[in-house]
């Protein structure tokens, strides 16, 4: 299973990572190794087999729509790298 470097770069963008040339080669090698193993899953016939994303098969666990106290803003934002007036500070997003 060949993974071109351009593909590694695309995946790094999706992962919000930037890789050095050396790291790209390492990830290329690691991906190729795992994907070669993954090919072996094709030895199993999965025609008409339903996928299992979650073992319990539970769907839409609902609760009553009731008003409850929120967590304290000061406490919740205390870990933020930058904050002001109970808000998170981020660089300008929309020009």
């Amino acid at each position, binding site marked *: 299973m060949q993974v071109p470097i351009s593909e590694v770069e695309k995946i790094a963008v999706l992962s919000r990572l930037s890789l050095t040339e050396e790291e790209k080669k390492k990830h290329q090698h690691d991906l190729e190794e795992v994907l070669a193993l*993954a090919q072996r899953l094709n030895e199993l016939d*999965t025609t008409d087999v339903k*996928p299992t994303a979650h*073992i319990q098969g539970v769907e839409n666990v609902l609760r009553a729509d009731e008003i409850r106290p929120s967590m304290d803003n000061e406490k*919740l934002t205390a*870990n933020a790298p930058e904050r002001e007036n109970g808000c998170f500070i*981020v*660089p300008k997003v929309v020009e």
Partner: protein
Amino acid sequence: MKAYEMTLKQAAQALERKEISSVELTQSLLDRIGGLEPQVRALNAVCETQAMEAARKSDQRRASGEAKSGMDGIPAVVKDNICTEGTKTTCSSKILAHFVPPYNAHVIERFNAQGIITLAKSNLDEFAMGSSTENSAFGASKNPWNLSCVPGGSSGGSAAAVSAQMAPLALGSDTGGSIRQPASYCGVVGLKPTYGAVSRYGLVAFASSFDQIGPFTRTVEDAALALNAICGYDKNDSTSMNAEYPDYAAGIGQDVKGMRIGVPKEYFASEGLSEEVKASGQNAMKTFENLGAIVEETTMPTFEYALTAYYIISSAEATSNLSRYDGVKYGHRAEDFDGIVDLYVKTRNEGFGDEVKRRMMLGNYVLSSGYYDAYYLKALKVRTLIKQDFDKLFDKYDCILSPTAPTPAFAAGAKSDPMHMYLTDIYTVPVNLAGLTAMSLPCGLSSGGLPIGVHLIAKPMNEVTMLRAAYALEQALPPIGDPTFAGGDA
């Protein structure tokens, strides 16, 4: 007997009978930690002041006959990916190096309600991704049986702490074997409860459809007592099972006559299984037969595909979960950046270690357009087949027996190739794919003096049967003794 040597049950009884105070017990464990931690490096933080304060309060409650539970005053170690309000929870990652959770995980609330004391936070592979605790951003933990060997992982710090008698109880988390494999390497009991039996609220997410919190103890009975303390429904976790929970100690001491134990032949035929581990597993099978159980060879045709399916699915879930680390709400933020995307990229590049990046790359690859069906969806279908294989096995058997890991603990630095590292979890991952319960307990020592574990698996919510079998086996096998702290350079 010194206080730190006590098992969970012994310590609870001694506290109950007022033969010891929680302050004495906690101080004894803190002294033990002080003496051994420089060599073992099991812990990210020791909560000395809070623990002693909590111990004093526990003693006051006991003195006035107001103990919160039979466990009131017991100190426990908690894996550092379980949120503790006001105490750093780092996941052994640079990105969370200074994170102080604003709330407690459900299991910590359960601890508080019962008077169980958080003594220390234990080291792990970064975000629980690894099998040796070498991937920690804060340095590797060591195996108390041989300090030149790894304790296993990812809950290696918790396993090493219980093995080294730094605490009678530790919590870990198990996504693909992260409780059972280190338990095997460190010669302790490690149990992964049924998926949904312990709330994941406040457990930092790795792969949400697999993650489960569970205990490390030095005896099987202690594992049962620990489950009584942490299992149960929690409305804050939508996957928490709203069911009747048993007294997990109910089967302790009952015999195993007529119990049906299946041993899939693929487990013992697998390449890479050491002769000593194989012999030790066979000895466990023979012991069960001598105890009156019916041990039969059976088959698990999908076994060899489980590890691959696991790495595809767990990496896909991990990359989704880790997208929250963006340098905005909490955690590390890069200093120099040019715009919001650059902030994300630099923050994540600096904050995450190699193995975490590797899993994110794989996860995003298998989820990306064009590869989703071929890899992710295919792996989910294989997961269905694995579950069906187990369903068939549990129609016939009460428990499945296998080795916990292919070999005893390996030397630090010996598995630099990630694929070799992944293979140490070959016996444990199928259990997480199917949401089952399983445990590792010691069943012998290698010629090199390292513990060997045996792995028992039961169907969901059947921990009581599994613990009954494990207790019978533990009682019938000669104890492996205490760790020797060999191989140290100190």
